[in-house]
């Protein structure tokens, strides 16, 4: 018998193994749901898959009679807009701050402590301040996302810049590069893939802050909806919404990974040699 660490499933079996927990979860849920519904047909806690499909269908296709809007898409558009603007701003701030603090000692000494302290503040604790200072509209939600994830992205980028082999920076200087040219041709191209990786990790937090902000004050949005229907115990809406949010998060993560692979074929290939 080989050691456990040397036993590896082949590809097909690996996929089957990965699917197994999902299937088990689904089966457990269906059994639990069926047993509760058998006792009480009006039970709302564990709705059947059919009920959920019907609710999702209603949310995704039925137009509101007054406004002509379809709830799911209105919520999705509102949430994605906030999320993407927030993430884009965070990436920009993270890249600029990270590269400059990572590369230029004077800037690092000046701003590094500030960035460290800022990133220690729990973002949700400043949400009331944001609501008071910026109102309860879009701006405060976007600022919360930025406040929540930009510092960690900046620190990740800064670390990547500091990890660049000194030899590369020296070599560029012996080829005549100025600080600006060094940033443009060496540092930025080498850190953008890392920026995308850092962003992927930060997306989870970004969703957290988005849904928290929407739960507290919004008129539409995915987080707003699930916290709204919570009052009526509408699990048949909440569960499909959670699944939908998960799918969106997965799609964003996948897109970023794809961009990294296609746009930076050298990244991860033999590292920086």
């Amino acid at each position: 018998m080989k050691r456990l660490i040397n036993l590896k499933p082949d590809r097909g079996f690996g996929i089957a193994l990965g699917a197994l927990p999902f299937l088990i979860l689904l089966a457990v849920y269906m059994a639990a749901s069926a047993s509760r519904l058998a006792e009480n047909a009006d039970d709302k806690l564990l709705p059947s898959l059919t009920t959920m499909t019907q609710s999702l269908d209603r949310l995704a296709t039925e137009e509101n009679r007054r406004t002509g809007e379809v709830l799911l898409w209105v919520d999705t558009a509102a949430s994605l807009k906030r999320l993407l603007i927030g993430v884009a701003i965070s990436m920009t701030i993270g890249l600029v701050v990270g590269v400059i603090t990572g590369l230029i000692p004077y800037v690092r000494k000046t701003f590094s402590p500030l960035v460290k302290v800022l990133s220690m503040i729990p973002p949700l604790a400043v949400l009331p301040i944001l609501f008071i200072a910026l109102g309860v509209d879009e701006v405060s939600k976007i600022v919360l996302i930025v406040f929540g994830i930009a510092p960690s992205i900046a620190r990740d980028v800064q670390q990547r810049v500091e990890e660049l082999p000194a030899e590369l920076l020296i070599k560029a200087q012996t080829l005549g590069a100025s600080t600006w040219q060094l940033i443009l041709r060496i540092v930025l191209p080498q850190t953008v893939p890392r920026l995308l990786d850092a962003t992927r990790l930060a997306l989870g937090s970004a969703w957290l802050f988005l849904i928290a902000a929407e739960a507290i004050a919004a008129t539409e949005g995915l987080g707003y909806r699930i916290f709204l229907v919570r009052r009526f115990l509408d699990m048949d809406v909440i569960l499909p919404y959670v699944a939908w949010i998960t799918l969106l998060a997965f799609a964003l993560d996948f897109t970023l990974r794809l961009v990294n692979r296609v746009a930076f074929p050298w990244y991860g290939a033999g590292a920086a040699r």
Partner: protein
Amino acid sequence: MSAVQVRKLWKEYGRQVVLENISLDVASGEFVTIIGASGCGKTTFLRILLGEERPSRGELLLDGKPLPDEPGPDRGVVFQKYSVFPHMTALQNVMVGEEFAAAPLTARLFGKARRESRQRALDMLAAVGLAASGNKYPSELSGGMQQRLAIAQALLRRPRILLLDEPFGALDPGIRADMHELILDLWSKLKLTIFMTSHDIKESFYLGGRVIVLDRVRKDPHEPELYGARITYDLPLRRGRDARLNHAAAGPDLAL
């Protein structure tokens, strides 16, 4: 290519003395190899020549003028590793030097200037035997090919001195011999002034027109870092080198 003068150079880190009282005159076109035990300061010496480190005392002159104390295009360098930019193809790696020089703001060339620069880069790649690999990324090249690329990249800016920091240390013996022929060929064609560190004595004597040996002369067993390394031997090998160039086929053993 130019003459280098080192005048009473010291390098200390706090109480630790690395180099003490190094003086050296190197004429234009010399191939100087620097050997010594590991930790004897040969890499530190090269880094000082490069401008990456500053001497604690003493001065460093290039054609009679003090060397700037930061790296610049007057000194080319090839390190043992991390010498080429992993995010650029081989061709881009070689072109980037001219782009730095010609385009301060964008660091990129366009149109006719780009085509001319591209041609010069292709010629340089051909000169180091990488004509067919222009579109490959460094990670797709073997170790020897990466070092060839690093040499091509360094030479395109026509540095006044070329510094090699154990450039062939990580290569297989066969490939290393090829690299020796390449560097000797470039050195004699381009009239380069070369400083190279190595811990391979045979290689140092084979390549160098002059071999410098660094060693700690004074030793204090209780405080080994009290005294730094000095030049213990300075061996001109000009005759041997010329003989070798005339008989390029001769192996390293014959050359010694």
